[in-house]
């Protein structure tokens, strides 16, 4: 069949959660663990329905908690299976010991985490704090901007996680509520194209599998020297994941016609003097405001992070070098630091940015809306910084009281 002659996908108006569930189905996992938590529940409901309809040939484990979800998929993955599970917030926290073990075992698990707050203040609301709280677990983190990217990233995640040279678990993050419940048009690819995209994984050497009678083991003690070696190899694989992800994104574009620029997406960056750095659903709003500002002659661009772990420092430096001023927008906090987490990390590369000035914006936590007005304010403040005006290092955009407090 001439692939160019036929439609490559069909448009469905679906939620971010449905996009994740459909992507999981298209990836044909062997084992799926399902446990509900707001705002992720719809994913495992949809997968359960696919399974009940006979559309999804997988072992579906309706576990009794998230901790078991992660343990079960990790074990199935080490045995040789392709696996999927999804969680959010407290669920991610409840599986944290297993999340660490999964990474340490280099099990190429793919999991969706629908971002939600995790404070003791009960907040069933959006925010990337759950992601930040697990950033040093040794997983690869990808972040989606819209429902389409949710679907695309889940498929790309399998290629990255299961790549023989990588073998690191991947978590696909997207904003709870803002994307999980957003219905919009999504190009749903056909099964045969997804099969083709993932078929590369079958042609590579087989990863080590825990099979009956094999005499092989995993999860063994590695105190004597082996531990350092394995940790170094893990860190090296994370580094390799950057270039690999760029390749995968290009290949994805060749098959499905959608590419995002790999590790980072640059929006109107080429001639920009002033840049906002953001991630997730806020980027759509930022792009809209940038278009308006551009009409008024403001040279502003957006650098969207699609990968957060490993930190794509090289790509970010290349994109940001020489810009007059950079405003980093964080939807989470970094306790013990004044600025947001991404700001704090990017700050480590400040000397390589060719004199760009940087400030931190904290907004959108606990469902606070990152509004058009808020983004305009962020751009204006960053422009002020570019012009050499005195600007605060950290601005809590939706909580002006923070600026009046002497503590920050």
């Amino acid at each position, binding site marked *: 069949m001439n692939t160019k002659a036929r439609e490559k996908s069909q448009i*469905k*108006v679906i939620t971010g959660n449905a996009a994740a569930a459909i992507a999981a189905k298209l990836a044909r996992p062997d084992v799926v663990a399902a446990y509900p938590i707001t705002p992720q529940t719809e994913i495992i409901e949809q997968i359960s329905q696919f399974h009940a309809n006979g559309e999804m040939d997988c072992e579906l484990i309706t576990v009794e908690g998230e901790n078991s979800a992660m343990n079960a998929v990790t074990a199935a993955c080490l045995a040789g299976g392709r696996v999927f599970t999804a969680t959010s917030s407290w669920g991610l926290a409840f599986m944290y010991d297993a999340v660490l073990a999964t990474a340490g075992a280099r099990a190429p698990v793919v999991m969706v985490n629908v971002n939600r707050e995790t404070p003791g203040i009960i907040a069933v609301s959006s925010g990337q704090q759950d992601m930040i709280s697990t950033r040093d677990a040794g997983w690869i983190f990808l972040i989606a901007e819209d429902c389409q990217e949710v679907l695309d990233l889940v498929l790309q995640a399998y290629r990255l996680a299961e790549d023989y040279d990588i073998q690191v678990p991947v978590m696909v993050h997207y904003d709870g*509520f803002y994307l999980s419940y957003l219905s919009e048009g999504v190009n749903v690819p056909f099964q045969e194209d997804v099969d083709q995209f993932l078929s590369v994984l079958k042609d590579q050497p087989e990863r080590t599998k825990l099979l009956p009678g094999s005499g092989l083991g995993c999860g063994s003690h590695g105190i004597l020297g082996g531990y350092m070696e394995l940790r170094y190899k893990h860190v090296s694989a994370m580094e390799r994941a950057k270039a690999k992800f760029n390749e995968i994104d290009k290949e994805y574009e060749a098959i499905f016609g959608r590419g995002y620029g790999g590790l980072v997406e640059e929006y109107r960056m080429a001639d920009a003097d002033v840049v906002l750095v953001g991630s997730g659903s806020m980027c759509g709003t930022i792009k809209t405001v940038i278009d308006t500002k551009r009409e008024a002659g403001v040279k502003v661009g957006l650098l969207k992070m699609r990968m957060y772990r490993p930190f794509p420092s090289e790509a970010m430096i290349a994109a940001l070098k020489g810009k007059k001023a950079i405003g980093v927008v964080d939807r989470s906090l970094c306790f013990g630091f004044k600025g947001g987490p991404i700001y704090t990390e990017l700050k480590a590369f400040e000397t390589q940015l060719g004199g760009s000035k940087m400030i931190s914006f904290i907004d959108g936590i606990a469902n606070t809306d990152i509004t058009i007005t808020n983004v305009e304010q962020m751009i204006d403040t960053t422009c002020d910084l570019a012009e050499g005006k005195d600007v605060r290092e950290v601005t809590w955009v939706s909580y002006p009281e923070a600026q009046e407090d002497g503590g920050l």
Partner: protein
Amino acid sequence: MSEVRFHGRGGQGVVTTSKILANAFARTGQFGASFPMFGFERRGAPVTAFGRFSDKPVREKTQIYNPDIIVVLDPSQRNSELVFQGLLPGGMMLLNDSDNTIISHDNLKKMGIIDANKIAVEEIGLVIPNTVVVGAFARMSGLLDIEPCCDALQDYFSGKKLTANIVCAKRGFEEVELFDL
């Protein structure tokens, strides 16, 4: 781009109304995005949903503060201040009500009134007015034909329910009373 805010109560299908409309727009090659206001959903509790409909991709991921159109599925909210909050001048309102008394508001230019509950009871036997409202919205806004709305219903209903809801949408389209203010 039209920004639409939907007001109703849990059980009326408020969120589904906005989803079906987003779906219908996608079927015409346009773009639609819909999402609920975040909160605990319970039958009978006030529900708000948002819809953005455009001929260009919708990228904004914020709530709607200044709607062009408000859609009220719950007659008891017809005079609520919250419903009219931020309505832009030249705005439209679609109201589900058995009483076709016009509401006066400075920014309201056009109004559509439909007794969607009555039609829903007649056609599907339940007081779920959402699909009638979808048809009425298409007519009042002039943004959509009725066909893509009926096509969109296939993604949410099947069999007899689909047939009945298509009738609901068509009757909404035909029977909505329009008033220029």
